């Protein structure tokens, strides 16, 4: 087994990977940019190497610097996490060339599944159903022809795309050309590739994905589905296993699982991977894309199957065979995950980086928290706003929802704004509780919901708290004490909080 592994990532996923490596008795090597010197993944690692300035392009995306660090620290393998270089085939190839194991699929598999259109071709070849579309970019005329043949609305998507960049809905001929122009220039900016293709748009679709796991000896199993229909700006924010829809129609799990395995086998896939499907209102599913890496939302699968996906990734990369077959996989209970972001729901969900002044984490039965923050840490503005993933497990979905609401009520982050309160509103929504999910859920939710009305007595309590706080802070400063918190409070007590 590996003695030492470098994690080519930052934030919660670097921390999560290190936790499993530490449990496996494998030394961990962190890499960090200027902005991350005091980040948790650096503090937690056994070894650490600086790889450049704060901008990702100058640090976490620099293959050369990551490999230099790997050589300098003499690691046996590299775990890429998600994002950054995790789906970069050249990086995977460079690791192997350097004699360092890349913990993931082969470079070749990444190439076959990396671009959406290539992945579509592979999937079609493997007999997986796909949403009708032009497999590649083309002229406005070709796009119009397609749209007329299959009927509007259609969706424009960047060939190299992801995360909603370069995506446009078009409802008629009139808007097609301008939409193509905008989508393609956005794609150019985001991916340095203006190519855009056209797809039939599925109305109110669900996003349901299948987790795959394969070893390097040809064994592959699926670990069931995750429903990720709750998205904002095409970004998942809530994920669950099982999917409320699949729970009602168990045969879907097997059908989607087998389709996913066929597609992955066509790419000679191994290690962990995820095949994403769109599901229409008649429960027909369509291959969307494959993520050739660990997913952000993998914890819900771990909670329900009892497996440690990172441990399995490492063992597979080390050449181990899967010790279980498809029929050995068992799903118990229900798990939900919320992605806690540093963003301000009351200010149009704009980012909210900055210093944490207070942090109270939920705990107790059925709570799992994968985070990278600590009290006093300054959340950098250079990277994505994911602070933590709050996941819960319970015997039933109904109990899991109640547990998540309880956990969100316990969760307190001071100094910056987060979406914790927003999640509570969603989880209390009858439509969500009923499991009536689709990728447009949040837009409809925001349209139909007013901010909840507070019970009247709370206003009096709030006024009292504000008055005491303001007067405490307006008191003239006293000589410094051991810690400012207490100095601060004493000052307050000296005034009104006596």
């Amino acid at each position, binding site marked *: 087994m590996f003695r030492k592994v470098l994690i080519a990532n930052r934030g919660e996923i670097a921390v999560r990977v290190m936790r499993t490596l530490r449990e496996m008795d494998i030394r961990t090597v962190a890499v960090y940019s200027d902005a991350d010197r005091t980040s948790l993944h650096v503090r937690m690692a056994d070894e650490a190497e600086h790889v450049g300035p704060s901008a990702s392009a100058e640090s976490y995306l620099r293959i050369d610097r990551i490999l230099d660090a790997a050589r300098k620290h003499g690691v046996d393998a590299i775990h890429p996490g998600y994002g950054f270089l995790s789906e970069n085939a050249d990086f995977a190839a460079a690791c192997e060339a350097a004699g360092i194991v890349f913990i993931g699929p082969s470079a070749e598999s990444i190439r076959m599944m990396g671009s959406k259109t290539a992945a579509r071709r592979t999937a079609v070849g493997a007999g997986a159903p796909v949403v009708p579309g032009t497999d590649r970019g083309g002229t406005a005329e070709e796009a119009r022809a397609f749209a007329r043949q299959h009927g509007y609305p259609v969706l424009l998507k960047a060939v190299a795309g992801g995360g909603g960049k370069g995506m446009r809905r078009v409802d008629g001929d009139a808007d097609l050309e301008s939409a193509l122009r905008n989508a393609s220039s956005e794609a150019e900016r985001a991916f340095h590739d203006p190519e855009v293709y056209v797809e039939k748009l599925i109305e109110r679709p669900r996003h349901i994905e299948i987790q795959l796991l394969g070893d390097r000896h040809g064994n592959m199993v699926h670990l069931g589905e995750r429903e990720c229909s709750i998205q904002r700006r095409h970004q998942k924010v809530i994920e669950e296993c099982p999917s409320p829809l699949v729970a009602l129609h168990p045969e879907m799990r097997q059908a989607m699982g087998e389709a996913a395995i066929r597609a992955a086998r066509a790419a000679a896939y191994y290690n962990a991977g995820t095949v994403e499907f769109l599901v229409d209102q008649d429960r027909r599913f369509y291959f969307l894309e494959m993520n050739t890496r660990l997913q952000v939302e993998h914890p819900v699968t771990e909670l329900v199957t009892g497996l440690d996906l990172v441990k399995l990734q490492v063992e597979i990369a080390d050449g181990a065979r899967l010790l279980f077959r498809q029929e050995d996989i068992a799903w118990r209970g229900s798990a939900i995950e919320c992605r806690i972001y540093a963003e301000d729901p009351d200010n149009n969900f704009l980012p909210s980086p900055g210093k944490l*002044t207070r942090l109270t984490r939920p705990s107790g039965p059925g709570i799992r928290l994968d985070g990278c923050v600590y009290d006093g840490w300054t959340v950098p503005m250079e990277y994505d706003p994911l602070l933590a993933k709050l996941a819960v497990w319970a015997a039933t979905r109904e109990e899991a929802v109640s547990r998540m609401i309880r956990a969100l009520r316990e969760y307190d982050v001071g100094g910056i704004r987060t979406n914790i309160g927003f999640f509570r509103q969603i989880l209390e929504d009858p439509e969500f509780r009923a499991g009536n999910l689709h990728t447009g859920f949040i837009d409809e939710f925001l349209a139909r919901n007013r901010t909840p009305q507070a019970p009247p007595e709370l206003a009096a309590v709030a006024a009292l708290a504000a008055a005491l706080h303001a007067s405490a802070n*307006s008191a003239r400063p006293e000589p410094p004490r051991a810690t400012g918190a207490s100095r601060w409070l004493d000052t307050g007590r000296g005034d009104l909080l006596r």
Partner: protein
Amino acid sequence: MKLSLTIDGAEDHIEIVAPAPACRFCLGDGPERTAHVEAPEPGVYSILMDGRSYEARVEEARGGLVVVIDGYRFEIDVRDPRRWSRRTHGRRTDGVEDVTASMPGKVVRVLVGAGDAVEAGQGLVVVEAMKMQNEMKASRAGKVVAVPAKEGATVAAGEVLVTIE
């Protein structure tokens, strides 16, 4: 001790008759009420009133206070003759408008210079944070009189980027 309040826009006032922990107070012209108040953590107030247990979390934001109790959010300004004052953001009376950063971040593009004439809705400055770009626009037509924003500079939320008159 009397304090003037603005609670979610509504004017009110509160009198603290006896200090915490065994606090007595009157809100508005209401009756005197008693509450037992402790501050277990900075900015966190545990308030026992009428047999109920409340936890109020207070944050300073944009010149006032944000109080969150069990997920409910109150924007409260407290005006204390002794010190408390309320900052103003972009609200000016002299026909001059300060365009401020709506989020903390880095100035990635400055699209206007001093002396430029701008249309209402015209983009002035692009601020980026956490991989999201946010374009600050002119709320009305006018002439740019000052551009404190510098490309590459880091700005706080509410910081003035451009001044228009």
